[in-house]
């Protein structure tokens, strides 16, 4: 197995972080890179949507939405009763794992590209769709459909958070402008895309490495959960892909989305909706365990898995 350069960048960041090298990327640059990634993913998806009838996608959208509600409901009891987490912490971690990680998605796309595997180009739409339901589930698990929850402030935070606005914005722009016209801005959003992803992963490696301290504190359960649950979710995602008759590539992506855990949108929403949940717990699992696992081992594994269930 030859490693993709973007994965090597992640490992470089991880190694540098573990050796405590002085290599912090300026926060402004991290922001810049993630803005370009989000917009680029959105734009690519939008271009394809412009070729598609939106109506045809509605059943798929519904099914993916449903998965977004189901995954956190499956994670919660495991976290609460096996992991013995406090209710609010279990709900918050469940929300993280029900939602998705854009960075992981981008690496999976790069992985497929390097293997010349195509996929349904409207996958970014699923990425957007999967960000939200798990957050709602997490909150309702703790608060019920309580009036005390500031649904106004919350939905502002969720729907107008940076990642959704940029993904959706990109989708819309790509959709309205169409492939030919978007080509003109490809010099920033498409040509350097994979290099930008590489640099982004370098920083993610540094961030992941900085979680090791707290990982030690929270111990074996979190480590196991952060690896086993994603594999389990990937099976569900791959199964759904099969059901929806997606291509191999599309199924790998859906499995990866299911397996990935949020570290941007959900943490921000949880600070508002469930502030008593311990944010370190979720981030340690999501960033310190699941993200590295998915990047390095998970994606090829989900590819194998998909080939297996497609009987190849």
């Amino acid at each position, binding site marked *: 197995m030859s490693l993709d350069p973007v994965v090597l960048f992640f490992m470089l960041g991880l190694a540098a972080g573990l050796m405590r090298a002085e290599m912090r990327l300026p*926060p402004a640059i*991290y922001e810049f890179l993630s803005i370009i990634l989000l917009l680029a993913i959105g734009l690519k998806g939008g271009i394809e949507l412009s070729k598609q009838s939106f109506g045809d996608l509605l059943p798929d959208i519904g099914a993916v939405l449903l998965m977004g509600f189901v995954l956190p409901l499956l994670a919660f009891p495991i976290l609460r009763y096996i992991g013995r987490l406090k209710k609010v912490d279990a709900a918050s971690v469940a929300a993280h794992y029900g939602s998705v990680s854009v960075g992981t998605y981008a690496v999976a796309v790069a992985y497929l590209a390097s293997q010349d595997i195509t996929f349904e180009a409207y996958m970014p739409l699923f990425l957007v769709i999967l960000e939200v339901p798990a957050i709602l589930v997490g909150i309702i698990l703790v608060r019920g459909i309580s009036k005390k929850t500031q649904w106004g402030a919350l939905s502002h935070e969720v729907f107008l958070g940076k990642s959704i606005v940029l993904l959706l914005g990109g989708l819309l722009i790509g959709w309205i402008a169409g492939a030919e016209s978007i080509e003109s801005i490809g010099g920033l959003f498409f040509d350097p895309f994979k290099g930008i992803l590489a640099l982004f992963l370098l920083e993610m490696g540094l*961030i992941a490495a*900085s979680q090791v301290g707290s990982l030690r504190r929270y111990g074996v359960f979190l480590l196991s959960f952060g690896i086993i649950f994603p594999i389990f979710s990937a099976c569900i995602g791959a199964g759904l892909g099969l059901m929806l008759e997606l291509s191999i590539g599309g199924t790998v992506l859906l499995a990866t989305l299911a397996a990935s855990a949020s570290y941007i949108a959900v943490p*921000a929403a949880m*600070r*508002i909706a469930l*502030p008593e949940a311990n944010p*370190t717990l979720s981030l340690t699992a999501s960033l310190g365990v699941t993200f590295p696992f998915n990047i390095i081992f998970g994606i090829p594994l989900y590819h194998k898995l998909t080939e297996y269930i497609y009987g190849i």
Partner: protein
Amino acid sequence: MTNNICKQITIITESALEHRLTDDIQRLGAHGYTITNARGKGHRGVRNADWSTSSNIRVEVVCGASVAIAITEHFKEHYFENYAMILFTSDVEVMRSEKF
């Protein structure tokens, strides 16, 4: 010259709270605030500003004593338990006390 003693409140907390705090601060009667980006460490661990979720802000408010108490009490009640936050107060001499 209208020099005068005011309170200077300094709050160091999670960036995520920026909008809520500045809304609170103004509602409670302060006429302004200043914010700088910060990183640090406290009881809730390292917040090293590597990325948005782990970054701090340092909020400074200069105001009269009664507003200072209102802000302190409000923050204590609403944020101290669940958020990484410290708050401290000192006396400062201001020019143009009518501004504060």
